[in-house]
């Protein structure tokens, strides 16, 4: 044991604590960096005998302290949990937004919505029936019918526009996910190389974790950490990232919608693997919600709206054909165009458009100014199976759906905030803690310096003052 070993111990203390202060400084500097994982310096005593022999005698006091490593404070369990919630959260938040937009297309109760249009339409029939000979009152029926069909057309085309904007959102997000996957593959490669070379890759890992979180929020993917330090990302049955390779996704138009929405005649949108063209199963996250909006939510309401339109057309035409207009030949006419039985295509028939005198207010057997058919059509408003009742059912259904989507989004947002907060409690920087550590480290540094001074003074006595007796 050298006389100078105590100096070496003090030096190791100075160096270790300087390293610790550097790490604390890094933590404090990144206190507000998103995705930053705090580091901790692991110290271990140096020079202690690793395994004591039976006959060995150890009188050594140790060689000071070593920096064993810098640990990234991360818990895999919390990562898994947070990521699962992130995927679900991305999905339900987007779905709730889609529902809100659909609800905004059908503002009820109001004086301008479809319900009000329907009421005014039926009322116009009663008013016309009160003065069957008056062309201006008859024209009002055509005007109200026009307003009604336009309202239906508008809602239908807005739903179609919503599907288009969701598809473009999905396309943008898929492009972002592709870029992110490629970046994760690159980072995997860098991290494996750095770890192999013994270089600190913590900052790269933070970056990778942040990007993976983003991929998961968009797609609901899952991850697995490999032994070499890389992270694989799985999506459904496929692999988005494996080691330093990534697979691209693509948004492609599919065929007709699946049942029960095939009848709407709309095309579906799918996300497929770019390489082999297989559809991605179990897609969740925001992209999954976009696809759900395109392929089932919007079509569901369009279908219900279509049934309102087709009920209007069939109810009106069935009655209207039995009646007659003012002119001699104005019999057996359609009121709505029988070809347009969807919300998007409902329109007045060419037989009556611009020709109020041809509207049938008289029953087939009645006189020219008979009004019984007009009143009978106006009474359709009370039909329990009519367009109004169907529309009310639609609005009730929509309200329940929007409400439940909002509740799921609210609950999920609380859960997500909670798990993210749990994770941040582990990975995040607490300034109080860092300052406490800083104080402790600073004191330890000072103490090591003091030890060095003490040893120095001791050696000074030995070197300068010893053997000078009688000098």
């Amino acid at each position, binding site marked *: 044991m050298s006389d100078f070993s105590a100096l070496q111990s003090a030096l190791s203390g100075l160096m270790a604590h300087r390293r610790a202060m550097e790490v604390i400084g890094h933590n404090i500097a990144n206190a*507000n960096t998103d995705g930053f994982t705090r580091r901790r310096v692991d110290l271990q005593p140096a020079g202690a005998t690793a395994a004591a022999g039976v006959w060995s005698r150890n009188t050594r006091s140790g060689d000071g302290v070593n920096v064993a490593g810098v640990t990234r404070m991360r818990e895999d369990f919390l990562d898994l949990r947070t990521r699962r919630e992130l995927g679900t959260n991305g999905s339900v938040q987007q779905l709730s937004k889609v529902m809100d937009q659909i609800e905004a297309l059908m503002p009820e109760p109001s004086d301008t919505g479809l319900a*009000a249009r329907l*009421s005014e339409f039926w009322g116009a029939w009663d008013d016309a029936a009160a003065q069957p000979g008056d062309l201006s009152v008859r024209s009002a029926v055509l005007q109200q019918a026009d307003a009604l069909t336009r309202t239906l057309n508008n809602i239908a085309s807005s739903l179609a526009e919503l599907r288009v904007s969701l598809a473009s959102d999905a396309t943008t997000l898929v492009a972002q996910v592709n870029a992110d996957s490629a970046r994760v593959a690159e980072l995997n490669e860098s991290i494996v190389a750095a770890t192999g070379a013994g270089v600190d890759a913590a900052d790269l890992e933070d970056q990778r974790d942040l990007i993976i979180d983003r991929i998961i929020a968009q797609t609901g993917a899952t991850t697995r950490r490999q032994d070499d330090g890389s992270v694989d990302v799985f999506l459904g049955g496929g692999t988005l990232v494996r080691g330093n390779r990534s697979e691209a996704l693509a948004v492609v138009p599919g065929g007709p919608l699946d049942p029960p929405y095939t009848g709407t005649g709309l095309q579906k949108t799918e996300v497929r693997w770019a390489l082999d063209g297989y559809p991605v199963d179990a897609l969740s996250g925001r992209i999954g919600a976009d696809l759900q909006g395109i392929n089932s939510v919007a079509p569901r309401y369009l279908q219900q709206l279509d049934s309102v339109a087709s009920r209007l057309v069939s109810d009106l035409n069935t009655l209207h054909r039995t009646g007659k207009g003012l002119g001699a030949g104005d019999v057996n006419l359609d009121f709505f165009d029988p070809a347009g039985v969807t919300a998007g295509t409902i329109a007045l028939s060419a037989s009556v458009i611009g020709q109020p005198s041809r509207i049938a207010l008289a029953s087939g057997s*009645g006189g020219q100014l*008979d009004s019984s058919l007009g*009143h009978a059509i106006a009474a359709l*408003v009370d039909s329990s199976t009519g367009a109004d009742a169907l529309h009310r059912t639609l609005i009730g259904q929509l309200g329940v759906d*929007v409400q439940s989507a909002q509740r799921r989004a609210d609950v999920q947002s609380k859960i997500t*905030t909670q798990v993210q907060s749990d994770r941040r409690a582990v990975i995040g920087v607490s300034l109080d803690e860092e300052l406490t550590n800083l104080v402790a480290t600073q004191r330890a540094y000072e103490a090591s310096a003091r030890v060095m001074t003490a040893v120095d003074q001791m050696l000074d006595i030995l070197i300068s003052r010893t053997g000078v007796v009688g000098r």
Partner: protein
Amino acid sequence: MSRVTSFSSSALMLADVFDAQRALTRAQSQIASGKKVQKASDGPAEVVASLDSRAQLRRSEQLDRNAGVARQWLAASDGATQSIIERVSAVRSLLIQANSAPSGPNTRTAIADQINSLRQSLIESANTTVLGRPIFSGTAGGQLAYDSTGAYLGDAGTVIVPVTRAVNLQVARTGPEVFGVSNPSDPANGDLFQMLTSLSQAVMNGDSAALTAGLSKLDTATDRVQRVQVELGSRLNQVNDLRSAAAANDTELKAAISQLEDIDLAEATIAFKSREASYQAALQVTARIIQPSLLDFLR
């Protein structure tokens, strides 16, 4: 014990402050709009019920307008039948005058002329119109129910106006129902106008037997017109009764809609105040928690 980091606590506090702010905004918008249900998701059951009530109310307002039309028809019929009865009774007095005392040809011609002119004004009454349409012509088109010769131009159709969901009211009678059915082969037993033509002829001729028979037929005709007047008059009362019952129902509907959609201002204001207080409290507490750190106490 879990660690509390500045990131985790600020994220949670921010989420809570946002929640409080959202609740405050919602309470504020409810008060500003006066509606607690502004869109379907605010209360699906309430919205469906309110849509139903609104549709019923609009239907009821429509039926009210229909009732207005029915009243016009019935009032016009009432006026027309009243003047018809008055003129027929004037004819009756003339007939009695002609039949009671022997009179000269001049007097008889004068009486016959008066009967003829009364007949013309009766035809005018028979052509009474409402909303540009003759009330006694059934459902036929055209501007007249009877032409100047007294021939019926209308048809046998009934004019129906729905005044409630259940009641389709017949608001007019056709010419033949009011004035009798014309009889080309036997004018004396035909409709009122034919009868008057043959009676004025009888006065000219001094045909006492025909006059006596004519008087009783005239009474039958008056009875018929009176029956129509009473019938349509009672319908007018019926319309008023039905609509006042419906008006009571409308008031209930409006109350129901208001209850479903509108806020209770006192309740909403209290809710707003309490949310405002909790929002401010959240802000203050958050500000206090975020501020201090160990830095404030270390030198």
